[in-house]
């Protein structure tokens, strides 16, 4: 059932995948990437962890429940949209307090998408895998 090769490989690959997911999220403004792809890569990293060490261990490694991740991501995306009206512009308008660093409300929105994708994909994966 549990394979030593898979466990060792997962231990090496997991940090790489998490780092690459965050890299895709942060680079996604003008180049290929973004919250959705980054979220998928991070979710795949946790799916790999659940393959190697079991679903319970993957849930512990995630620290928060996937459902809570989905909810907080949706709230974050909504909040980034509401910052526009607060700044005197329309809903979902982009505000760039530090444009030279690429930091603005689109990054917040993308972070929300990132969390929603991780939450939804991991809810599906963990549920399927627990039933298997």
């Amino acid at each position: 059932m549990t394979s030593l090769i898979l466990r060792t490989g997962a231990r090496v690959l997991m940090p790489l995948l998490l780092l690459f997911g965050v890299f895709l999220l942060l680079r996604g403004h003008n180049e290929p990437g973004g919250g959705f792809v980054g979220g998928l890569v991070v979710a795949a990293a946790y799916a790999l962890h659940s393959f190697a060490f079991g679903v319970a261990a993957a849930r512990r490694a995630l620290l928060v429940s996937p459902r809570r991740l989905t909810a907080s991501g949706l709230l974050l995306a909504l909040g980034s949209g509401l910052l526009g009206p607060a700044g005197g512009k329309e809903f979902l308008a982009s505000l760039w307090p530090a444009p030279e660093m690429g930091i603005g409300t689109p990054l917040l929105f993308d972070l929300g998408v990132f969390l929603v994708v991780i939450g939804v994909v991991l809810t599906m994966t963990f549920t399927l895998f627990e039933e298997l």
Partner: protein
Amino acid sequence: MRPEMLVYAALVLVSAALLIAFVRVVRGPTLPDRVVAVDLIGVCAAGLSVLGAAVSGQRGFLDAAVVIALLGFLGTVAYARYAEKESLK
């Protein structure tokens, strides 16, 4: 002979390998044959992606290759677990 010719030759060869692996997926008599062939298709896709980056100069293809290379084996692992479960029944 120009260096681009080598890239195009590699594109043709990797595409041929992908097609042959696909034939094995369709015809493969047992499940392990098909699983290994699907894994090979993933490796070929990563190679094609890198070659596409070399031909077009688009750096985005390299990221796709990294994702395919890192995650390609995940499906194989899932199939392996499934095959293990089936054989235990």
